[in-house]
């Protein structure tokens, strides 16, 4: 943890934020279940957004208070060269790699 501490105690943080984050966790679980229930579930397992999402889930369990930044970096394009043209491209939320066209 590099920064300043939160103004609340652990108990206060749990009292304030547990329920809303419990609900978010269930949303994520049902999103993954929905992907598994899709007719073509077997074919999309390796899709770059799904792979990035699963790697991000593993980062949630890392200790140290820098999970948010680590997940942001995981989803980011790590390259530094400009792309030739932006025409027809839009951000998808995860970096697809050199040949993914984004």
């Amino acid at each position, binding site marked *: 943890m590099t920064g300043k501490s939160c103004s609340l105690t652990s108990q206060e943080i749990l009292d*304030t934020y547990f329920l809303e984050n419990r609900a978010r966790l269930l949303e994520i679980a049902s999103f993954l279940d929905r992907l598994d229930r899709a007719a073509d579930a077997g074919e999309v397992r390796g899709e770059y957004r799904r792979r990035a999402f699963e790697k991000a889930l593993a980062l949630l369990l890392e200790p140290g208070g820098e999970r948010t930044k680590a997940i*942001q970096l995981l*989803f*980011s*394009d790590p*390259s530094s060269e400009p792309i*030739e*043209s932006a025409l027809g491209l839009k*951000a998808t*939320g995860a970096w697809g790699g050199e040949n993914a066209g984004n």
Partner: protein
Amino acid sequence: MRVIDPHMHLVSRTTDDYLALAYGGIHTVAEPAFWPGFDRASAASFHDYFHQLTVTEPARAARFKIRHYCWIGMNAKEAEHLELAREVIAMLPQYLDRPNALGIGEVGLNKNSRNEIAIFEEQVELAARRNELLLIHTPHLEDKLKGTRIIMDILKNEPRVTPERVLIDHAEEHTIGEIKDNGFWYGLTLYPDSKGSPARAIDAVEIFGPDRICINSSADWSVSDPIATLKCANEMRRRGHPEALAERVFFENPRDFLGQSPKFVLP
């Protein structure tokens, strides 16, 4: 509570939203020029838009005693149309001279393409020449880190632009540190689906401190919330922070950044 929202796209909002701002104490707003959700066909469309930003919206806001300022610029989303983009850059000075125009913005990058970079660099040159404040749009999602770094390199290469006169907007957890280390102001955007939440914004205030941070709603034509700054201030109270800290982040900081333009006056 007094609040300045330094980034709202009011041309896309209803008059009811202005009423909600007034009821909530958001009495000063600044509207950057941006992309309307479609690519414009000609320079005439930009003339109309800049007229709307400098004449129509201030009048609409004044009905509710809200002070409306704006930023004038050529956005990155339409930079691939190089010829039109350059035609627009040539018309910027006449609108930058208008009484509510605080500087050049929001300009920057969207997908980090060569044409976006060229159009951004030309506007940094214009800002340097005219000594204008700069409001920077950083790319969304996976393109943000790369784009923020390219933008900062361009800005650092222009000695006439000083970092305290630049706000780099839509910062997130992975870009705030580098922006702050380079001496720029930074903006956090409260955008329900794709950017930050009130809780994450207040986390940033706790982690990075209240210096050089401005928090905005970026309320526009997409899913967004014109009173998001009020909800974020409430998040600060929910954590037991003093009222003076909320005043600092939601009023004094945007006042100090925008106030570097002599046109920005509070009553």
